[in-house]
């Protein structure tokens, strides 16, 4: 691996100044579980690596039931699934953070990093989309926000401009009678890249029998993780039954454009979308009911 400079700025302004100065030759180091591999394998190159873990707002999170979650971009996964309150409020995010790599990876890898890496198969992005997360970006010209579903722009590419960095994610407060779930299909049971990933979020009416609103998001079926808009809006007012889950899965299939590769054929991936949407909706509904 080519050598590089190492910088560990103490605040966001210093970090963005470095990013602006070095442009594409600067790479941000959060948990390092993607970037160190990419630098080592020559997939990306850096003159300077900017370690953002000395910036307090980036490595921590704040949560209250009223305001929701503000999640520093470099907060490692294990801290999220280790917090029972968070797990209850955002179960799909918990599902995702528990399966990104093994334990050793989760000690370092962050949801923000998973998002910035912008893999089409990223395990946390569908959960962020399902939970209506907002990405907060700092740059040389101030801060801006973008919805999680608009953050990725292509495989390995995201909306960040030169000098910009992801600082935090915010997730709205958990709604009453809501639940969510993320599942991915992998041939092994751990340590694998999603063949397909799906997150579902639902809010039930007070009876718990019908769906007031729902959000479905998918991974590994298009160049970027997708919000399944048609399937999501169709859920409103539908009974929370197995037939609904199947139908939503069928609708979700309409928006996917998977590739065939060593992980599976396009046909297989399309089929798995239906299976995983159905299964995540079922779990989300069960969780919504027990969350009451």
């Amino acid at each position: 691996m080519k050598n590089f400079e190492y910088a560990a700025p103490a605040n966001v302004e210093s970090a963005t100044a470095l990013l602006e100065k070095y442009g594409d030759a600067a790479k941000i180091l959060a948990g390092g579980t993607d970037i160190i591999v990419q630098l080592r394998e020559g997939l990306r190159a850096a003159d300077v690596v900017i370690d953002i873990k000395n910036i307090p707002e980036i490595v921590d999170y704040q949560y209250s039931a009223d305001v929701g979650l503000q999640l520093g971009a470099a907060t490692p996964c294990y801290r999220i699934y280790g917090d029972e309150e968070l797990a209850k409020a955002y179960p799909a995010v918990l599902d995702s953070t528990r399966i990104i790599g093994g334990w050793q990876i989760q000690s370092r890898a962050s949801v923000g990093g998973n998002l910035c890496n912008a893999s089409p198969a990223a395990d946390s992005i569908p959960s962020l989309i399902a939970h209506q997360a907002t990405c907060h970006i700092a740059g040389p010209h101030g801060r801006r926000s973008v919805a999680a579903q608009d953050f990725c722009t292509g495989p390995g590419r995201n909306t960040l401009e030169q000098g910009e960095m992801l600082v935090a994610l915010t997730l709205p407060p958990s709604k009453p009678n809501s639940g969510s779930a993320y599942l991915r299909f992998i041939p092994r049971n751990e340590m694998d890249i999603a063949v397909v990933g799906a997150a579902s979020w639902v809010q039930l009416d007070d009876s718990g029998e019908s769906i007031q609103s729902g959000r479905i998001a998918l991974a590994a079926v298009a160049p970027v993780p997708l919000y399944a808009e048609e399937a999501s809006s169709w859920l409103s007012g539908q009974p929370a039954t197995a037939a609904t889950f199947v139908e939503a899965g069928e609708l979700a299939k309409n928006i996917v454009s998977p590739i065939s590769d060593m992980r599976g054929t396009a046909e297989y991936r399309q089929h798995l979308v239906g299976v995983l949407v159905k299964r995540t909706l079922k779990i989300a509904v069960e969780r919504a009911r027990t969350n009451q």
Partner: protein
Amino acid sequence: MKAATSDEYKILGTRPIRHDGADKVTGKAKYGADVQFANLAHGKILRSPHAHARIKSIDTSAAEKVPGVFAVITANDFPDPQDKIADLGEGPVTLSHLGSNVMARGKVLYKGHAVAAVAATSTHVAEQALNLIQVDYEILEPVLWVLDAMAEDAPLLHENVFTDSMGEASEKPSNIEKHLHFEKGDIEQGFAEADIVIEREFKTASVHQGYIEPHVATADWNEDGQLRIWTSTQGSFTVRHQTAELVGIPLSRVTVYPCEIGGGFGGKIAVYLQPVAALLSRKSGRPVKLVMQRDEVFEGTGPTPGSFVRVKLGAKNDGTLTAGKAWIAFDAGAFPGGPIGPGCMCVFSCYDLPHATVDGYNVCNNKPKTQAYRAPGSTHVAYATENVLDEIAGELDLDPLDLRLKNAVKEGSRRVDGPVYPEIGCVEVLEAVKNSEHWNAPLEGPYRGRGLALGFWFNCGLKSSATANVNTDGTVTLIEGSTDIGGSRTSLAMQLAETLGLTAEEIHPQVADTDSVGYTDVTGGSRVTFATGLAVCKAGEDIQKQMRQQAAVLWDCDANEIEISGSTFSRNGNSISFQELAAKQLQLGEPIVGRATVAPDCSTNGFGAHIADVEVDPETGKTTVLRYTAIQDAGKAIHPSYVEGQMQGGAVQGIGWALNEEYFFGDAGDMKNASFLDYRMPTCLDVPMIETIIVEVPNPDHPFGVRGVGETPIVPPPAAITIAIHNATGVYMRELPASPPRLWKALQEA
């Protein structure tokens, strides 16, 4: 030699803590990559990005100018072995092929084939230098699938390889480097006698041994011409021989120091790095260490063959097998050689077939040169035979266990390739299945099924040496040459302890370098506990002979009058313990050093049966292994934990082979999944506990009845798992791995 019954033993069958244990749980054990030297240079290898290409030129000048670079070498730095053939302990090897695999000469034959190497101050500097080496390639069409490579018009890998068909050479060069043919009885008559005949075709993907420790070698070519090598290998003597031949010096100038070895499974017998490190060291005047990265291990070292196997079996309505016919084609990979012989010999090795023919083809193609992997060749063919047998059981409505018992080989059965079995445990293994809790436990629920399969491996003898020095404190230092991959120091020490009436802890086993112990063949072929064990037992007897003489001096009598019982030497009411006698040895006479060498040429014939319970998710095609039991004849389990460990480890490797492991190749012949992330070996979340039942039918060729155990356990799993999948879903998976996409597709088409 007579095999004793278990209750006669004090040490055998117990579970002492391994002698190298403390070092291995504290991080002190020195593996190949752990050696450090002053002025050590670090090497890296440039590898071909193409699966098949002619090397037009290599320009290393820019790399040589990088500050911190000490040496750059290519194939031109190796002596040209021309047509020399050498016997490296496991049959003749064409040295030009071995050498060209270590460093490509003229052509690259697989992606990842080494073309140049650099030694520098650090791996990072070496890597930068590699990027500056200019190789001009003329890209050729690659051929990957074994049947494609057999076609008349297939791209030809070697102009100088001709088909060796039972000793006859073909007229034209061919990718088919070998054709074997075996027959027994009258095949036409056999099928004519059958009431049912089933013929099926099976394919298996290339799979890798997957040891966690990458290949590593450090070489120091001294100013006096002595070459010392520290490496991770299954056989230090074969490394010495191969390296000496390839760098063109007498083998006596090479000393190989075997480090602790982080797994091998057959993949750490051929040399890759050792000759390269040696020449880099000679050129740079420094010790040079080479360590592979994981992608280099996958792309540059031996997978086991991908295969195509066609098996036809005939049976009478009562299940009696009448005939078997097999047609087998294995990948050789880039160069001739591979396990086609064992494949042919194992395909019907578990069943007494009166009439059989077997044809085997070994075929060069643009994959890494295939290497041995645990019972090499046997897993491929057992997968085919066992599945056809299961189908026959289904068609005839016979119990699959009874069908196997009815046809199982026993003492006196003749294998299709000729040998007649001595006392073996095939029937006893099947009886153990019949009596097992697992086989008799109900398995209920949708998409669940149970599979049973049998497997065989020869287990070889080969050559071993051992020296045992009796210390004056009553202990014995055992010096042997079998590198210890799984606890063999202890299984050998236990045999010496049993022989001498000592405890395992009173033996101090050491694995020695090639200058410090007699010639010893590889740790492979499931031979160490048997053959090196035999040498150790004999060394123990040699010690007893010498000590008896010393006792005779002590008591002024004839040595023949001394009786030995356990560790006690006695005569006429006098007795002295091993420890007391050891303490007096220097007063009584010469130092006591036992030594023995052995060359048993027998097989110890290991049979095993596995029971797998699976559940299939019909929506995704994913198979979960619910329960698994491995049953095997170990002859005599010296250290039962290590026997169980071999059975469990082999079973899980076989489960990986059955369900998910495979090389994915792109159209250009490039491996797409050269990482532990995408080459999916089982994690601990993917398998259940692996239950074991050890059967002990003593091997008549060993004083304690030992049979090899290491390899047989990988043979049954792909068959057992796919048969279980059939029982769960009604679908036979005739292509490995039975991965979720493949099984889902099969379920759709069913």
